């Protein structure tokens, strides 16, 4: 059943004991509640309501002090369904190399392998309503033109949940009807009390938006509130552990990552390519025009670059063959940055000819200085607000540069056309751009990373917090590295694996 804690006056938790308490009714939390054994008595707490509300979303406000990033109350959704209320439906599994330790990527390596998650592929696909056939985005751009045999860059296709599965809409009736699940909305976790030896959670405090406080307890707790909030909550609960729960090694909140999304250049096409495009039906949907290229493992190792997805994005103009390659080349050689910048300064924009853009969405190297901390300002629930310091390292920029150089050479070598690489990519020490570039993917990862050793991470290979008997963390905050693909598929795979682990655990008192 789903209850609204704002509308409840008597303590609904009095004399109740739950087997499992899941904090967070987003993709991970709802998936977990569905796949845990039906014999388990589950409490699911969602901090928001069934729909967006200012009173809930406002709690997400925080401060960005690092690289330009999205407003923290705009980059996530604090109501039932969580980020599935916002996501675009693209997904793909991580590659094998993403799990491995790479000597050129400090802090890389998962304590599990891709083969540990592969068994959950089929179920994960059904959760996001993928058809059985090998459906993918029906790309109409470059896929049939760029040679797949290039040794460094390979074609890549995302799968597409279309329309993107909304977990609230899909699972609400199941949450209502499952007799073993009790779901409360407008139920905010505001404190955790640990046992005397600090090795397990004794009880939790829940607050509604009217200020009423409740306490409850369960045998096992799973924190599933998202890649920023998981860290913020653990850091806030410091009445017994001065650094916060699970933070003996000062790792909670560190290694915050997103997938940096930057436009890195543009291109013109050779005449024979322009003719192919002019013979195609104009594809107005941006998603359908893109072609993705990813680096081979050999390229990543030899060039010491991170994983990435290079997006070749034909403009609508590319479908009309109105200017010869020779004329385009002339424009390229005769134009120059200074005259362009003068014109742009006066006119605001300058519409130089290009047949399309090149964008990168890349893995971000794990960086302990890129982190979530808490400030002094508190929200209406009494918890300290988030401070996010998003930081990059040299290898991130090197990856952008090598990716664009390799693609530019491929383009010229195969006589597909020519590529312009933007100044900031080529210029040593140039800062990465901020808005109006896309900047990131709203993928919050890494802040409670998984590792084999407590000295290197917050959770173990089963997502249990080191040093705690009954606290697990679900969601992308446990990713030690991020690959280049959108995180939803991996979140679902890992949550299904977590459900299997908890189902196999003997949780009798």
């Amino acid at each position: 059943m789903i209850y609204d804690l704002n509308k409840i006056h008597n303590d609904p938790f009095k004399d109740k004991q739950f087997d499992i308490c899941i904090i967070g009714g987003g993709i991970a939390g709802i998936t977990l509640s569905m796949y845990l054994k039906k014999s388990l008595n589950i409490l699911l707490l969602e901090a928001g309501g069934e729909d967006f509300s200012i009173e809930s979303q406002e709690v997400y406000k925080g401060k960005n002090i690092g690289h330009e990033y999205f407003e923290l109350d705009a980059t996530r959704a604090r109501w039932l369904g969580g980020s599935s209320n916002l996501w675009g439906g693209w997904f793909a599994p991580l590659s094998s190399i993403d799990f491995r330790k790479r000597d050129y990527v400090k802090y890389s390596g998962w304590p599990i392998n891709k083969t540990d998650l592969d068994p959950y592929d089929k179920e994960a696909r059904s959760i996001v309503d993928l058809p059985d056939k090998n459906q993918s985005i029906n790309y109409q751009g470059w896929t049939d033109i760029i040679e797949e045999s290039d040794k460094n860059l390979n074609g890549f296709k995302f799968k597409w949940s279309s329309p993107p599965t909304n977990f609230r809409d899909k699972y609400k009736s199941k949450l209502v009807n499952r007799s073993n699940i009790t779901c409360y909305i407008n139920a905010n976790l505001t404190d955790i009390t640990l046992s005397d030896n600090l090795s397990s959670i004794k009880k939790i405090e829940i607050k509604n938006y009217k200020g009423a406080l409740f306490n409850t307890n369960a045998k096992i707790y799973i924190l599933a509130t998202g890649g920023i909030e998981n860290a913020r909550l653990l850091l806030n609960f410091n009445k017994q552990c001065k650094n916060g729960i699970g933070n003996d090694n000062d790792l909670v909140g560190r290694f915050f990552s997103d997938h940096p999304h930057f436009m890195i250049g543009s291109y013109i096409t050779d005449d024979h390519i322009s003719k192919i495009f002019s013979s195609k039906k104009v594809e107005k949907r941006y998603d359908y025009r893109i072609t993705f290229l990813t680096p081979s493992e050999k390229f990543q190792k030899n060039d010491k670059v991170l994983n990435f997805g290079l997006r070749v994005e034909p403009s609508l103009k590319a479908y009309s063959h109105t200017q010869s390659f020779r004329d385009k080349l002339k424009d390229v050689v005769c134009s120059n940055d200074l005259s362009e910048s003068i014109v742009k300064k006066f006119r605001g924009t300058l519409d130089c000819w290009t047949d399309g853009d090149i964008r990168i969405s890349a893995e971000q190297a794990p960086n302990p200085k890129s982190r979530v901390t808490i400030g002094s300002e508190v929200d209406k629930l009494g918890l300290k607000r988030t401070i996010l310091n998003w930081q990059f390292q040299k290898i991130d920029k090197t990856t952008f540069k090598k990716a664009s150089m390799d693609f530019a050479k491929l383009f010229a070598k195969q006589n597909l056309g020519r590529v312009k690489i933007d100044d900031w990519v080529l210029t040593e020490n140039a800062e990465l751009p901020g808005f109006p570039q896309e900047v990131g993917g709203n993928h919050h990862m890494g802040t409670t990373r998984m590792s084999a050793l407590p000295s290197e991470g917050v959770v173990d290979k089963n997502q249990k917090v080191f040093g705690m008997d009954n606290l697990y963390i679900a969601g992308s905050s446990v990713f030690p590295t991020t690959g280049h693909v959108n995180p939803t598929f991996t979140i679902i795979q890992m949550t299904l694996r977590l459900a299997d682990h908890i189902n196999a655990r003997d949780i009798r008192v």
Partner: protein
Amino acid sequence: MERDSSRRKFLSLAGKIALVFTASVTLFSSKKIKNEEEYIFINGWLLRKKDLNDI
């Protein structure tokens, strides 16, 4: 209207001046051009050296 017209004239002049004085600098500046095998960088564009003969 008149202001726009003046601006266009100025832009045209500024563009020409900029072209005359910077094209050569841009083409031969070691900062802007990196010769790499058969490739050459001009204004950020990675061209094949033979492109310069084709235009």
